[in-house]
């Protein structure tokens, strides 16, 4: 039994090392002095896994003070807010409609909408590049605000529909017996019931906007317009010189809030993905 226990810990540790190693590497790179960082790996005596010189905040200072990183954070947050507003306004009523009003064909239609989530940006970025040029949105955050909802709306409509399935019908039914019209139920009773669903929608939107790369790469060309996920890998590279310390610090700072959010909301996202293949 003891051996089995040790095997379990060893396996868990193995998976943790595989998954977490790049993040350890970001962390240690962010705070290492340059002369500790750029020692060729053929020098076996210089151990790269530890701090050989005292840690430094120089890379962080450079990132926050002398690069466009703070600007990219602002841009990203702006897009998050705008896309979240659009997504909530469009997907939440749609999810409600499919779950409560559409009857039998609600599920089918919901699945149809969900399937469009599978159509990838890498298939659509070429026609979108034409559309964006037509609308005069080239090199503008407006392009992202217009197009990101094509990814959030299908998933979130499906998510809200699934969420409402698990909310008992009776509260709304009782309100109607008490004399509310269906519209009044939707405006006064339903929002309170859907609140956790709306929160999930906002969080999903946040994570998607933070992570998206393809459309940002296609539409944004000037450095001050970029979002974090585009600017860090593309524009922090000055000429041919990679500032690895600052680069890794940027990757680390961006990953931390996302990791926390994922841990809190993972189960809700998963319900969306498993599509009834898992019965709770």
């Amino acid at each position: 039994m003891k051996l089995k226990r040790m095997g379990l810990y060893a396996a868990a540790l193995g998976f943790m090392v595989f998954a977490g190693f790049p993040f350890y590497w970001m962390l240690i790179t962010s705070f290492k002095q340059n002369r500790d960082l750029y020692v060729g790996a053929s020098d076996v005596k210089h151990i790269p896994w530890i701090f050989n010189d005292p840690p430094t905040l120089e890379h962080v200072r450079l990132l926050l003070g002398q690069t466009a990183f703070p600007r990219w954070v602002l841009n990203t947050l702006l897009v998050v807010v705008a896309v979240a507003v659009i997504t909530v306004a469009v997907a939440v009523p749609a999810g409600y409609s499919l779950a409560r009003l559409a009857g039998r064909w609600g599920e089918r239609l919901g699945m149809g909408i969900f399937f469009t989530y599978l159509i990838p940006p890498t298939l659509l970025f070429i026609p979108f590049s034409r559309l964006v040029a037509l609308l005069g949105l080239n090199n503008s955050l407006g392009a992202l605000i217009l197009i990101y909802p094509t990814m959030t709306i299908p998933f979130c409509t499906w998510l809200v529909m699934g969420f409402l399935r698990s909310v008992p019908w009776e509260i709304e039914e009782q309100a109607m017996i008490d004399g509310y019209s269906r519209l009044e139920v939707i405006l006064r009773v339903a929002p309170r019931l859907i609140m956790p669903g709306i929160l999930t929608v906002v969080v999903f939107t946040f994570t998607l906007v933070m992570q998206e790369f393809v459309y940002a790469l296609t539409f944004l060309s000037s450095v001050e317009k970029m979002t974090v996920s585009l600017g860090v890998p593309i524009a922090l590279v000055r000429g041919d010189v990679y500032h690895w310390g600052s680069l890794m610090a940027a990757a680390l700072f961006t990953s931390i809030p996302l990791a926390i959010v994922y841990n809190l909301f993972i189960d809700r996202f998963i319900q969306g993905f498993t599509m009834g293949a898992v019965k709770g």
Partner: protein
Amino acid sequence: MTTRRTIADREDVLGVLMLAPSLAYVILLVGVPFSLAILLSFSNASAGSLRFQWAGWSNYSAILGDAIFLRALRNSAVVTIGSQALVVVLATAAAQVFRATFAGKRFARFVLLLPWAVPVSLAAIAWTWIFDSTVSVINWTLKAAGLMHGWLYWLGDPALALLAIIIVQAWRILPFATVIVLAGLASIPQEVVEAAIVDGAGFWRRLFQVELPLLLPVVTVAVLFGVVYTATDLGVVYILTGGGPANTTQVLPTLAFQRGILGADLGQGAAIAVFLLPFLIVVAIAMLRVARRAEIGAR
């Protein structure tokens, strides 16, 4: 009391009104561009002008005679199949570990989920640094452990670069697949497992003859999403190798981007991207079958 049938009580009207914006968005900004993507692949459109003409199959015949495209098509298949095979094995194993209770499990789970939370492009740049030709920590560790005597130019050698891409893709999808398989494990009725134990089935027998067959639909869902995420991903290859050295690690999305956006040949870019469709169609059909089975099972 007479029933009021105002618009406020017409469920059908309200239903349509509430659904309309979502449907409109999906049709106008997914459906139309999707059709346009296919249409453009038969045109000579370029990014410079907004006019374009029908070009028949010329884009397709051009790319099918292009060794770089054929290589990209093969690479897409190799990376997708290779990484997802790795993911299935690792995710099933990881789910067996993480279903158990042990000290520090919450922290372990947090770490396991990290690769899924981090933006693809930032993960790719971190891996670029890890695979760096002169200071690669992997090379140092292999050398220090006495496992390697030469030198591995991870992103400079076509075969190694492809392997690096497969590793990064598997690393990135693993948490997602593990969590889905875990959700599937949790939904297996306890009685079934207990019955197997009573009948004297050991761990392996239980795993292969009881749990894995029951997990099949869930594992399928995990793999299908994994296929979509990997086959259609641009960021990992774009940042890790840029398709190089000498176009040997191009995949369909990076080549479509290079020709269609950077090279301004929208028609050819669209034709390359259209080759992603077979991956997606297979996935969509398989998903419908899983969903259908779940629907029947629920009755």
